[in-house]
C-alpha cells in the first residue's frame, strides 16, 4: 500500500526554503526559456511522437533560421529601446525586388551574367536602405520609432504589392528563380541546411558586435539611459541609426532565406510574422525597455516559438484549439518572464 511520506515541521520549513531557493535560481537562469522549450517538447513527444524524428527536428531548424536572422536584427533595435515594426515589409519588399532581378520570366539582371549575385545584392540593399531610412527619421527628425516604422511598414507593404502587380503577368508573385539561388533556402549538406551557415554567420557576427565591440557597449548604454550615454560621449544618434540599419540588413538577409525556401518572390512574405519577430526576442529575455538582450536569448525565444508552432502543426487541431493552446503557452512564458523580472528588481 502506498502512503504519502510524513515530514517533521522543522524539516518542512527547511525543505520549503530549499525548494523556493531552487525555484528562484531556475527563474533567474538564462536557461529558463530553453528549459520550458524542453518541457514543451517532451509533452508534445508524448502526444505526437513524430516531433522527435530527425526529419522533423531538421524541419524545425530550417523553419526557425530565417526568423532567427530577422529577430537578431530586431534585437539590436530593442536594445536601444526602439522597435522595428517595418521588418515584415522589408522582408516583402526585398523579396519582390530581389526576385525581380533574377526571375527567369524576364528578370532585370538576366543579361548581366550574374543575376543571382545582383539579386542578392538587391535583397541586402533594400533591407539596408529601408533600415537607414528608419534610422534617419528616428534620429535626425526625432520621430518615435513606433510611428516611423509603422508608417514605413505600411508604405513598403503597399509598395511591394504595387511593384509586383506592375511587373508580373498575374500580379501575384515572381517565380522561376535560379536553382543556385533556391539552394540557399532549400539546399542541404548531409541533411544540414545551407541556411544554417548563413544564420550561423549572422549570429556569430551579431554576438561579437554586441559583446566584444565598443559599438555594442554604446547600444546597451543608450538603451539603459540615452541621456547619460550622451553625456558620457556616446554618439547616440549615430549608434541608433546603425541599429536600425542592422535591423533592416538582417531582414534583407532573412528575405533571401525565405524567398529561396519558397522559390517565389512574394509581396505578402512575412506579413503575419511581426509578433513572432518581436515575440521571439522578448520571450528569450530581450527587454522591450532597452538595455538588455543577447543574441543567444533571441535564439532561445525563436527556438521556443518554432517548437511551439511545430508541435501545434503536428497535432493538426482545429483553429480555435490552436489559438487557445498557443496563447496559453505564450502566456505561461510571459508570466514566468514577469516573475523573473520582479525577482530581479528585488535583487
Amino acid at each position: 500500500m502506498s502512503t504519502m511520506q510524513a515530514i517533521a515541521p522543522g524539516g518542512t520549513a527547511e525543505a520549503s526554503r530549499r525548494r523556493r531557493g531552487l525555484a528562484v535560481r531556475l527563474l533567474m537562469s538564462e536557461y529558463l526559456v530553453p528549459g520550458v522549450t524542453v518541457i514543451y517538447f517532451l509533452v508534445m513527444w508524448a502526444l505526437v511522437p513524430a516531433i522527435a524524428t530527425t526529419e522533423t527536428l531538421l524541419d524545425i531548424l530550417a523553419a526557425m533560421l530565417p526568423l532567427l536572422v530577422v529577430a537578431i536584427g530586431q534585437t539590436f533595435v530593442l536594445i536601444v529601446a526602439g522597435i522595428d515594426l517595418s521588418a515584415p515589409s522589408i522582408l516583402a519588399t526585398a523579396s519582390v525586388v530581389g526576385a525581380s532581378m533574377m526571375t527567369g520570366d524576364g528578370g532585370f539582371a538576366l543579361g548581366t551574367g550574374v543575376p543571382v549575385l545582383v539579386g542578392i545584392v538587391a535583397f541586402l540593399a533594400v533591407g539596408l536602405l529601408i533600415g537607414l531610412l528608419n534610422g534617419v527619421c528616428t534620429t535626425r527628425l526625432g520621430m518615435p520609432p513606433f510611428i516611423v516604422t509603422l508608417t514605413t511598414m505600411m508604405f513598403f507593404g503597399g509598395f511591394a504589392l504595387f511593384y509586383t502587380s506592375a511587373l508580373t503577368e498575374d500580379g501575384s508573385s515572381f517565380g522561376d528563380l535560379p536553382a543556385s539561388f533556391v539552394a540557399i533556402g532549400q539546399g542541404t549538406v548531409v541533411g544540414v541546411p545551407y541556411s544554417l551557415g548563413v544564420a550561423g554567420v549572422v549570429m556569430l557576427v551579431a554576438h561579437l558586435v554586441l559583446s566584444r565591440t565598443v559599438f555594442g557597449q554604446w547600444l546597451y548604454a543608450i538603451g539603459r539611459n540615452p541621456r547619460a550615454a550622451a553625456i558620457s560621449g556616446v554618439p547616440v544618434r549615430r549608434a541608433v541609426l546603425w541599429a536600425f540599419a542592422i535591423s533592416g540588413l538582417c531582414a534583407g538577409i532573412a528575405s533571401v532565406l525565405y524567398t529561396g525556401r519558397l522559390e517565389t518572390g512574394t509581396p505578402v512574405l512575412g506579413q503575419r510574422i511581426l509578433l513572432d519577430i518581436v515575440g521571439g526576442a522578448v520571450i528569450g529575455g530581450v527587454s522591450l525597455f532597452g538595455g538588455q538582450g543577447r543574441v543567444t536569448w533571441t535564439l532561445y525565444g525563436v527556438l521556443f516559438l518554432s517548437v511551439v508552432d511545430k508541435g501545434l502543426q503536428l497535432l493538426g487541431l482545429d483553429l480555435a484549439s490552436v489559438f487557445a493552446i498557443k496563447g496559453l503557452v505564450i502566456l505561461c512564458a510571459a508570466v514566468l518572464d514577469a516573475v523573473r523580472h520582479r525577482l530581479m528588481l528585488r535583487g
Partner: protein
Amino acid sequence: MQVTRRAFTVGALVAAAGSMSVMVKAEGNKTVALLFDSLVSPFWVSGIEIMREKAKAKGWTTLENISNFDDNKQFEQVKAMISRKVDGILIIQTDAKAVIPAIRAANAANIPMVHFNRPPAKSDAYSVAIQADNRKIMQDTVNFMVSQAKQMGGKYKACILIGDLGDVNAIQRRDGFFDVVNKNKDIIDVVARIATEWNADKAFAGLTNAIQANPDINFLVTSSDFLHPQIEQVLKAANKWHKKGEAGHVLFGGFDGDEGAYARLQDGYLDACGVQNLFLEVDMAFGAFEDLWAGKKPDKLLLDPGFVITQDDLMAKRDQMWGYTVWKKMQKG
C-alpha cells in the same frame, strides 16, 4: 513502497500524457490533412465543415492547419503533415507559385496532394487541383441576366465588382463577364469596373463612387457573394434596392452561392447566382485521393461545372446550393 508527492505528480503527468498519446494515435483507416489559408468567408467555413462530415462518413481522420495567408507557414504545415505520415494533403494555398516546394515535398514523400478551388502554377511537380469552371459559370450567369434584360427591353449601364487579380478565380470570373457583355454591346454598356481586391471596404467605396458617377447603373455583377452586404447598403443609399418586378430594380448577379445569395434570391433582390457546387467539389477532391491511392493518375485539373440558380428555379435547385444549407442552419440557430 512509499510514494512522495513529487513522484505521484510526475507519475500522474506521465500517465496523462501517455493516455493522450493513445487517444491521438487512435486513428481511422486513412488520415487526410486539411490545410486552409484562412477561414474568412462562409465559402471556406462551409467547405471545411462539408469536408469534415464527408471524411467522417468515409471513416477517415482529418488533421487541420490554417496558415493565415502565410505561404512559409503553410509550407511548414505541409512538412509537419508529411512527418505525421498522413495519407493525403488537401491544400488551399495563398500563392500559386509559392506552393510548388510544398508539392515537391509531398511528391518526395509519396503523399498525394489535392488543391481545393485554387490550382497551383505550372511546374514539373504533380498534384491534382479541383476548381470551379469560373469562366463558364459566370458566362451562364450573365447570359441569364442578358436574357432578362432583353425581355424587359431598354439599354443597360453595367458595373462589375472584380476580385483580386492575383487570384486566378477572379480573373476567370471577370473574363466570363466580358465574354458575354462584349457580345451584347448594343444593349449593355459597361460603365464601371471596380477592383475590390476581395476587400469589402474597397468594394463599398468603389461602388459608392461608381453610383455617384453613373446614377443610372442598372446591371450589376459581383465576382463573389461575400460582397452582397456592401452592395445592398450602397444601393439602398442610392434608392436603387428594389425587388424584381418593382420599378427601379437593378438586374443583379452574384457568384459563389452563399447563404446571403440564397436569402436575396428568395427575397427577390438577386436575379441570378453562379453557384460553385461545393458538395461536388469535396466529392471530387476525395475521389481524387481514392484514385491516387488506387494507383491511378487523375488529370492535374478537374473542373466543377457548377450551375446557375435563379428566382425561377430556386426551389428546384436549392438543395445543391451550399449557401442554402448554411441558411437553414442559421434559421434553426
